[in-house]
């Protein structure tokens, strides 16, 4: 079993890249791999508490919390979040670490595979 780190820079709602990343993380974790998920840039919008579930919009809170139960580490870029008014504690979903970019590159360096989704 290996370690897979996925970095995503796409908005919660829009390109569906985050839906893809979450489903891939889930599949890899179910197969016994270690998985890290990094949310940066517009992807930090996925870390905001209080998302209302509409069937029309990507809604990932439950899925991300499911990932965490499977041992997936989920972290969000601190500066990217704060620039969007999403602050640790009051705004960020419990279990998602708010941290600097060095966390991501360190995790990537120690991983067998890195899937970096650096687009919107």
């Amino acid at each position, binding site marked *: 079993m*290996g370690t*897979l780190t996925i970095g995503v820079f796409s908005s919660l709602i829009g*390109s*569906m*890249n985050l839906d*893809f990343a979450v*489903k*891939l993380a889930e*599949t*890899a974790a179910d*197969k016994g*791999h270690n998985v890290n998920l990094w949310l940066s840039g517009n992807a930090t919008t996925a870390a905001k508490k209080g998302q209302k579930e509409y069937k029309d919009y990507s809604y990932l809170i439950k899925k991300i919390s499911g990932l965490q139960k499977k041992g997936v580490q989920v972290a969000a870029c601190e500066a990217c979040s704060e620039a969007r008014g999403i602050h640790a504690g009051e705004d960020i979903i419990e279990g998602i670490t708010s941290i600097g970019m060095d966390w991501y590159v360190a995790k990537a360096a120690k991983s*067998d*595979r*890195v*899937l*970096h*989704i*650096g*687009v919107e």
Partner: protein
Amino acid sequence: MKLGIFYSDLRGNHDMLFRLKGEKIGVFLVGNGIYHATIKEKGEPSPILQKKEIDYYVLSEDLSTRGFSTDEVDSDIKVITYSDLTDLIMNDYDKLAWL
């Protein structure tokens, strides 16, 4: 290197694909990348499918999402699931590039 390349758009960066080289190249059509596997614009297959030495894959879940079935996929392309994709990533390709 063994390079896995992800395509998630219908339009865009075809040049880069043809510039990348390695001992093994795989192209994963995900998201709107699946249109390359299903649409024949002006009767022609997508230009990204032209490279002979590449293995092409398309994600079945993303086909269905957009209204396509496996039998509409060009026969040179392998239809895979998220589970297959995970195995390919972890076993067959050591570097990944999402274009």
